[in-house]
């Protein structure tokens, strides 16, 4: 499947969702696995736009590509925003600060849906890029 490069803004979320669902269809994922994968990618893409680019005060793109092997559909998203590991533990300082409860809950919810949505999720910092990798198992054909 071809790659997709979109601006790191909320308007791009629709395009990313279309891309992911097309890849899922090509890989033969069922409806539930497709929804969960789409959700996982959406949560990360949203974080890239809001926590990466917007809060980081910069602009950039999100590059998405996919690979289909015998066993897995793999989706990669790369961005050039500041280093942001979605699964990193919240620093203790943040826990001590009187942060509104909904902010803490929401941060946890997003990553929970990512980890719950795919069979494998990997974050890497590669040079000046963040790379988020999602792997969904392809159902075995009978």
């Amino acid at each position, binding site marked *: 499947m071809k790659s997709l490069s979109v601006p790191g803004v909320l*308007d791009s979320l629709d395009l990313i969702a279309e891309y992911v669902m097309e890849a899922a269809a090509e890989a033969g994922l069922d409806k539930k696995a497709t929804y969960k994968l789409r959700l996982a990618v959406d*949560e990360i893409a949203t974080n890239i736009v*809001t926590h990466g680019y917007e809060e980081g005060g910069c602009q950039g793109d999100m590059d998405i590509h996919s690979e289909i092997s015998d066993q897995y559909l793999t989706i990669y998203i790369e961005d050039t925003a500041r280093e942001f590991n979605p699964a990193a533990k919240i620093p203790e300082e943040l826990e001590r600060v009187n942060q509104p409860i*909904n902010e803490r809950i929401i941060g946890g919810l997003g990553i929970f849906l990512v980890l719950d949505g795919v069979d494998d999720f990997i974050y890497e910092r590669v040079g000046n890029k963040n790379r988020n990798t999602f792997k969904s198992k392809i159902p075995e054909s009978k």
Partner: protein
Amino acid sequence: MAFNCELKTINAIATISVSGELDRKAAPDFQAKVEEASKQDITALVIDMKELEYMASAGLRVLIFAKQHMPNVTVYVVGAQELVADTIEKTGFNESIVMLSKYDAAIIEKN
């Protein structure tokens, strides 16, 4: 897919009907409707999700907002589709709101 939401208030029950896909981009529209409802004198807030195809954590955030700003109002989610309901349940939100498969006047309109 586009997102749409409408608010109707009848007899102190506000109903927000949501449709399409609720991601972070669409969430502010939903939040605006909840804010409007929170200014009214209501006893119940019903979120009609029959036509909602997708919901990200941004949608859950609006439900949290609703609960925090209307602590004396019962929040009902009606008709959530299977995968949207799944998200609500696995994140534990079904404990903060009342999930119904359809609008049940006996439950919602009790005084």
